[in-house]
């Protein structure tokens, strides 16, 4: 896909850092994060919004960054997996994914953790059913999801601070 030729300035806050970039307005947020900002923790799995590997938070809302033109992130707060740990301290979700076996090959993990983060923000004490539904936009081919659900449930017990 050819981006329009005119570039423009886009300002956004990524993981609490204010950035201004000269970029094509229709460039995918995913490519800007990975290519321009070097935040390669956000992954591309399908490029069509099905797998959720590229999920990030845009003003607190979970989005697939492969479907978001960077123009749409003008003035927005973006959180990627790199922004979840605070001062080197893992977020409870990261810790629980690690302990419960929620990450196997790891390629879906950043998006999955952000989806879980968005879920726990809305619903701090989700039932199993809530978790199953809440993560249904993020595909994992390794785990069969069980240990991911457990990681999310455990993180909700430990308190979703963050």
């Amino acid at each position, binding site marked *: 896909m050819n981006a329009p030729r005119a570039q423009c300035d886009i300002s956004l806050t990524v993981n609490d850092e204010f950035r201004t970039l000269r970029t094509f307005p229709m460039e995918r947020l995913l490519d800007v994060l990975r290519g321009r900002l070097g935040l390669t923790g956000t992954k591309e799995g399908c490029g069509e919004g099905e797998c959720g590997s590229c999920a990030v938070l845009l003003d607190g809302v979970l989005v697939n960054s492969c479907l978001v033109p960077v123009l749409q992130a003008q003035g927005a707060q973006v959180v990627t997996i790199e922004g979840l740990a605070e001062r080197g301290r*893992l977020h409870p979700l990261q810790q629980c994914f*690690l*302990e*419960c076996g929620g990450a196997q090959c*790891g390629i879906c993990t950043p998006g999955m953790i952000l989806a879980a983060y968005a879920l726990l923000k809305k619903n701090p004490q989700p*039932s199993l059913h809530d978790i199953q539904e809440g993560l*249904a936009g993020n595909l994992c081919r390794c785990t069969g999801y069980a240990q991911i659900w457990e990681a999310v449930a455990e993180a909700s017990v430990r308190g979703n601070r963050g």
Partner: protein
Amino acid sequence: MTGWIAPAWSKMNHVNHKHIVGMPLPRKEGLDKVTGRAQYIDDMSLPGTLYGGTVRSRIPRGSIRKITFLPGIPWDEFVVVTAKDIPGKNCVALIVDDQPCLADRMVNHPEEPILLLAHPDRHLLPQAVESVKIEYDPFPALFSIEESERQQVIIWGSDNTFKTYLIEQGNLDEVWAKADYIVEGEYRTEAQEQLYIENNGVIASFDRGITLWGSLQCPYYVHKALMTLCNLPADKVRVVQTETGGAFGGKEEYPSMIAGHAALLAMKSGRPVKIVYDRMEDMLATSKRHPSRTRHRTAVTREGKILGGEIEFVIDGGAYATLSSVVLSRGTIHAGGPYFWPSVRIRGKAVATNAPPHGAFRGFGAPQSLFAMERHMDRIAARLGISPVEIRRRNFLKPGQSTTTGQTITEPIALDKLLQRALSLADYEAKKERFRSQNMSSSSKKGIGLAAFLHGAGFTGSGERYLASVVGVEGCADGGVRVLVSSTEFGQGTKTVLCQIAAETLGLPYEDVEIAQPDTEAVPNSGPTVASRTVMVVGKLVQSAALGLRQTLIGAGLLGEGHSREEFRTACANYVAERGGLKSWARYDPPSGIFWDDAKYRGEAYAAYSWAIYVAEVTVDLTAYGVTVDDFVALQEVGRVLHPVLARGQITGGVAQGIGFALYEKVVWQDGRMQNAQMTNYIMPTSADLPPIRVYFEELGNVHGAFGAKGIGELPIDGPAPAVVNAVADALGTGFDSLPLLPEGIFRGITPAATTGVDSNPAQGVR
């Protein structure tokens, strides 16, 4: 809500380094994965990198008449590679070497690579690839097992046949007359896409030699393929595995192809070249699970004893031989299931069609032939009017009996006991009864089904002897220990478990043992990471090499028999300081009593088997004809469980893929080309589609592998499909014999007017 299992971390407080094996330790690379720091191939870039693209065949079979570079593209900016640029042999070196790396004159399947392009701007590639026009003279092509068998058109060799096997035992001709029943059935499975979430990708750079980084399972397969293709000696080819985002067999042989492409572009351009497929290219062009057809004809007594049977197992290998002969071998050996066959004749055959070559996918032929076996057991039970439980119980292999290849079972397996425990965990009998009465008054029907199966660990027959794997354990200058293997981590836990084995063997804390990133310049060839062999075969070698390391330190007078962590570290550091290095090697030595006859296909097919009983509970909704799996019990005997969290993750993940194979995942073909090469319309199970899979292990005190561990990775994909389809049959009172079982298949199967033939074959699909 079913089965929350207490997370295993709660036991972590009890970890001490005397008992590292069996503990749920954190994954070695886990921290990098949960923080997004893990570097996959597409996260890596070298200065001056060009991006590579592949021009592929649009037709299934024909000769290339003309190649035209259409106007509108700045072609002088592109590096172009054709078959004529190949310095070595134009093949993807594997077993038969029949597959070209770039088609030259002839194409034999859609999406076959013909020409390569590279450019500094990756966004320019798709349009450039589209602007290479190729004109063909089409030849007739074959798209199914049956078309290939008819041999009206020959597309490979003299008879379209890559390989055949014959397994024979007893005197089959005598059994038919003695049988009370002769039960026949035909079963089919379709292609399945591995659907690792990270697509195939590599980076190659050329500077006197090739260095190749990639998402791959088998660094030494790629090493061999690049030597052959680029005409380079072993020391001029270096292959490094990067963090790999899932593989499941799909990165066993195909990386040799894409690595070859990147290497050719790098050699021609003198610059690093990155090729990372997008999802559609990955699904269209790379290998999938072999479609299969299995026919059973079984002689049974009225008491339900199998007297003997004929099994014919045929797989569609696609256009080139690749790994089909080996997939066929495993499928043929597993075709008789975990049962005793006094007489049997099993014929296996892999045929050619004009689809992209089918290849390795977890299970490797066994899920196909075991689906047939386990559906057939239910068919026999139905014919005899006995229960699916009884037919299995009466025919289970017992210690002292032999498998279809004549391998005597010496392990203390107790399949009866395993079955009993699985049924009780699933509450099988009570549910079966309850569903029968509930179904009469309900518009949705519930059913429960089971599957019993086995999976051989390691390479088949003499395979491990030929591989002659080598493993190293290194003592480092800081006193730590490093495991040196070419075994790759792609989610299963290779790094973690091999470090656990070395740490426990040396009496060191887990943190003191690291593992080298697989790099052919730094690690020995410990064989491919396939065939559920890593823990059992490579793990055992790690144990030997670790013992050797300790012996060296003891022999040098630096270490006593009993030692503390600090004493070991000091001894190790001193040894390295004095002598410059400390490495201990172990080479595979075949266990005694293992005999295999490649010509007759008889003997010890595998050093060990894992065994399992799976029970699935389903609801079939009769308004939309969808199937929901409500509960799933997976009970297995895999020897000693070395890491409970990883082991359970292998089972739940394998079961999920198996449920996908059964109910969701359909490759729609047209003239050998996949029509639904997108995640939008190739459907795999989501988080909302699966129940919490209940996983149980039975440990019987095994002697194989490191600390008694056998293979685990592939076993869990063998059983779910037959268990689920048997459950659907239980719910509806109608059997289904083809995968995948989609709603339209169920509709056709139970709606008399919609059934076109006597033998309903609802999911046969477009082919």
